């Protein structure tokens, strides 16, 4: 049977780790960590994260918590947008590990 050559729509993907920074796990070496709580602005996310922070402190799993949200986003509804550079900077300065939410 003769063959026919066909092209495919498969594409290469852009390097998804471009500009990625090395994970700083040294900061977790201490017995207690500062936990960042990033509200993704979905309903109840901020309140849930607040409760998580309280529980982590009550269980001595966190030394402190640092709440952040995306209200400085230029988007009117920031849930589907990344946090701004300013938020990332504040989290980096005030937290050793960050919890956030995805979806509803």
């Amino acid at each position, binding site marked *: *049977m*003769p*063959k*026919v*050559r*066909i*092209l*495919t*729509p*498969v*594409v*290469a*993907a*852009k*390097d*998804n*780790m471009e*500009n*990625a*920074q090395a*994970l*700083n*796990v040294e*900061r977790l070496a201490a017995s207690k960590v500062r936990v*960042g709580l990033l509200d993704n*602005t*979905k*309903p*109840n*996310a901020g*309140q*849930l*994260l607040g*409760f*998580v922070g*309280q*529980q*982590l402190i009550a*269980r001595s*799993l966190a030394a402190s918590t640092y709440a952040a949200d995306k*209200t400085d986003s230029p*988007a*009117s*509804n*920031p849930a*589907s*947008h990344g946090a701004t550079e300013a938020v*990332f900077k504040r*989290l*980096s300065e005030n*937290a*050793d*590990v*960050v*919890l*956030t*939410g*995805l*979806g*509803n």
Partner: protein
Amino acid sequence: MKRGIPSATICSTRFVPVGRKFAQALGVSDLPIIEVHDEVGHDSPEELQKVAQVVAEAVPDILRKYQSRNVSGQRLRDEECIEMLDVDAGPDLSIRVSELFLQENWSDGLPVVPPTEERVQAMLDAVAAPPDEVLGVLHPRGGIATVQKVAVCAVMAGCLPKHFPIIVAAVRAIATPQFKMHSVQSSAHPHSPFILVNGPAGIEAGLSSGHDCTPKGWQANLVICRAVRLVTINMAGLKNVIASHTQGHLGRIMDCVRENDEESPWEPYHTEQGYSRDASTVTAFPGEPPHLVDDRGSNTAQSMLTTFARVIATGGNRSLFGNTQQVLLFAPEHAQYVASQGFSKEDVREFLYEVARIPLHEFPRNNLDSLSVWHKKLFSNVSEHVTVPAVRRKEDFKIIVHGGIGPHSLYMPGSLSSKPVTVPVEHKR
């Protein structure tokens, strides 16, 4: 995590598969996900406390994983980038290629035209851009959309070479940062690229502006839109991921039209964007499926536009929850009547800005959390009789004349994140 901060995300069970795919596409495939069974949006504080307990219990294990360096960023391993395949020739070639492409998730489910080298080359010959030119990177997958790969999709969709310049322009438009394909593709909100063509390129491509109800008259509209859809599946989409949109998009496959410039009493859309009337452009709008605006009895322009306003201004319209651009596809009959009463496009926008509003108290009380941060700030500590405008600025109403005979216009709500983008159609020099 890519900023160097150990991180974890809380995710309800139903969103976990999507979350895993997105994490993989973003290079953090081993991002710890704390699965909770509830979707917490409607939970009471007591229920949230229980969910918080589940999350808190998962944290020590996550910290251990990070401390033992079991979590790290990873480059997305591309599926083997197969450029071409040799398949048996024969009378059932189309069926076999369609089955193979569907099996590989390269197709939309309909039969495809086999993209042979000759057919792809014929597409490439219709544009000036070289085959390896990158039209853009389509997120969330981060697929690199070259002219050649877009041509493959155009062949698969059943396009003719005369359609290809429009498809190239459409891909350039949806790949821009303003269009935010990432959000269009990944949100549960059902919205999708709606393609508007202005100028001679639309006529040359055979695009219907709404009059021709025969299949032949709609062929270009259908296949151009399908080609864009195949591009988003193969270059923006995440393989094997369940649909992000709650119901998909029920109007997606026919979402390409030409403005009915011939019957419009107003200046065409692209001239409002700064292009000359004889220029050819493609505009990509992030639109929901359209809603009908039916008015056959109004005897003033104000009355007719109030009908439009009532369709727009409803308490469950997500488009009102943030900063959106909303599309009004005026039937020629409606546009001509409103214009005959002395209304320019600007007057229509002005009127709708004032009238298409909802008193705050008409938003379902428990749904106020869906309002944008901007709305929450604006409407905190104000009377419930304050009205919410459908758009923040009157310019956010985008007016197009489209369709044939009949008193039926369409309203297309927009996206909370993505913005319309207009680009020129480039012809072969």
